[in-house]
């Protein structure tokens, strides 16, 4: 199978959907003439022209609101935020307008829109440029939240997000745009709300999403050498998350570790933990564990970054302790 970059998978998804539906358009900072701050929209201005690929001023609140209004009037915007850190300025339009419009209007106005951009840590960028937003947006009824971890998922899930009639928050990563993976030729769409079992195993379940899932995969190899076979579930969709897949896996392995790139308090890990103790309490052979970023803003110095994020060794140790080994 051919191998392409994460950014190209996103690019193909947008191109295919824009060819398919005239009402889909892209707007954001540097998306047109600059070909995207991270080159995700490379070549799109040439193909679709300035009517459908639109450079905005630096005005996240304003262009997010314009996109929401256009979605109320029949268009299907894709809004690119250079990173989700900057989208905090647009949170009013995402949370107060897009997420609530359908309900407040008694079902009259839906907002088919995709908000997408880089999410999470990306090296020495300091505290304001290093945040993961899954838990923030998953908290809000009316939104769907997706975090792909590889090019194949990115393409299939972005196409699904663009076709969805609800507002979708789509969380990428600056660090992943250049990563490569197998993506078949031709169209495919992945279902929103379905997790993917990346690795089958019977001893311990690891649930994760986004780029940090790699530390689980790395640790899984080392654990296998010791005869411990972990099952790795990539959530893919954070809201609604695939409870059935996780619960079934825990019922099989009787142990659960959750690996998340963001902070621990009120995290996705917290929500999964609640659900699993409700649905599979009698199946658990050990208390659920989680590995998250430190409960601190993300500092600049490389030594502090090293300390803030979990590593494969931490996953290895956590699984061992869950196994009482």
């Amino acid at each position: 199978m051919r191998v392409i970059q994460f950014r190209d998978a996103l690019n193909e998804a947008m191109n295919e959907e824009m060819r398919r539906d005239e009402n889909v358009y892209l707007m954001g900072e540097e998306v047109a003439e600059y070909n995207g701050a991270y080159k995700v929209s490379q070549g799109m201005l040439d193909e679709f022209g300035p009517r459908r690929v639109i450079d905005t001023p630096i005005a996240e609140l304003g262009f997010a609101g314009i996109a929401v209004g256009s979605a109320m009037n029949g268009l299907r915007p894709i809004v690119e935020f250079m990173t989700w850190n900057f989208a905090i300025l647009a949170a009013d339009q995402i949370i107060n307008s897009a997420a609530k419009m359908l309900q407040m209007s008694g079902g009259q106005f839906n907002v088919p829109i995709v908000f997408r951009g880089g999410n999470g840590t990306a090296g020495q960028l300091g505290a304001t440029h290093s945040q993961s937003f899954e838990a923030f947006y998953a908290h809000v009824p009316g939104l769907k939240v997706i975090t792909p971890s590889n090019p194949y998922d990115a393409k299939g899930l972005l196409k699904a997000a663009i076709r969805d009639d609800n507002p979708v928050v789509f969380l990428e990563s600056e660090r992943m745009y250049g990563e490569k993976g197998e993506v078949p030729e031709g169209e495919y769409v992945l279902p929103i709300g379905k997790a993917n079992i990346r690795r089958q195993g019977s001893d311990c379940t690891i649930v994760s999403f986004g780029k940090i899932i790699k530390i689980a995969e790395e640790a899984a190899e080392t654990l296998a050498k010791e005869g411990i076979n972990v099952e790795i579930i990539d959530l893919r969709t954070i809201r609604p998350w695939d409870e059935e897949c996780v619960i079934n896996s825990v019922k099989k392995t009787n142990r659960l570790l959750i690996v998340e790139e963001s902070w621990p308090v009120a995290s996705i890990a917290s929500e999964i933990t609640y659900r699993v103790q409700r649905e599979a309490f009698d199946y658990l052979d050990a208390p659920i564990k989680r590995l998250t970023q430190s409960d601190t803003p993300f500092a600049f110095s490389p030594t502090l970054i090293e300390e803030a994020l979990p590593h494969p060794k931490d996953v290895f140790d956590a699984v061992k302790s869950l196994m009482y080994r």
Partner: protein
Amino acid sequence: MAKQTKFTKDQYIKWYESMLLMRKFEEKCGQLYIQQKFGGFCHLYIGQEAVVAGTVSGSKKGDKHITAYRDHVHPIGLGMHPKYVMAELYGKSTGCSKGKGGSMHMFSKELNFMGGHGIVGAQIPMGAGIAFGDMYKGNDNVTFCSFGDGAARQGALHETFNMAMVWKIPVVFIIENNNYAMGTSVARTTNVTDMSKIGDSYEMPSESVDGMSVESVHDAIKRASDHCRKGEGPYLLDIRTYRYKGHSMSDPQKYRTKEEVSEWKSKDPLEKVLSAIQDKKYATEKQLEEIKQRVKGLVEEAVTFAEESPFPEASELYKDVYVEENYPFVTD
């Protein structure tokens, strides 16, 4: 200010009936609210009726309308039977937003009324976005985006005005300038009290309009929307009006004098339309009485309808949150 155009007898009668309905509806809302017939907030439009009436008469079918939370009479002005607004205020399932929006969130897709919005100034970019949608589709519809003098201080206005000018979006921005953001006067929040000047730094054409004169509002709306329809971009109207009642029902109004209120009341837009009709002999006293009776009947019908309508079923809680009906909500 430009010379006023001549209006037909029919236009005056329509204005009168529509504005009288707005006034009587809002007076009834105020009474019902005090009687605790419904809860939530209640922001009345009394005194400002010419702004909606002139905007509606100056717009055409296909145009879109969006406003802030003082939104009871916008859908009525656009032709909605007041009973659907009253039922919404009561939180009933027959309301124009199925009892899910309430006082600040009236909607009507059928009438192109894109809401009632509760976050001050949020409708400014949304209004431009609705207009962007029509521009994208290539039709000549215009969006009328209303907000108060208070909302004009939000950063969203700056961002939106800038983009609307760059992209020549066909949106008429209407400041319903009643001089008070709750209890804070325009003069206390800005160094530039002439709000039409807000357009200047974007080179957006703008003008101040007498909001107590429905003819002036109508003419300004025509000028502004013609400009938009020609593809020349947005237009700003600083429509100077006055709300006779408090910001909401709990407002002691210590920020203004009784003299100021009575001075504005002497320029009452509804009285002016009535005088014009009487001066021009457009209607007999009997015909005017018939209008009053009709309006009274509509308001009574609205109250009865709202009182007698059912509240939403409990199952409605999980409807209209997502488009699909099988979304897996977390329920424990």
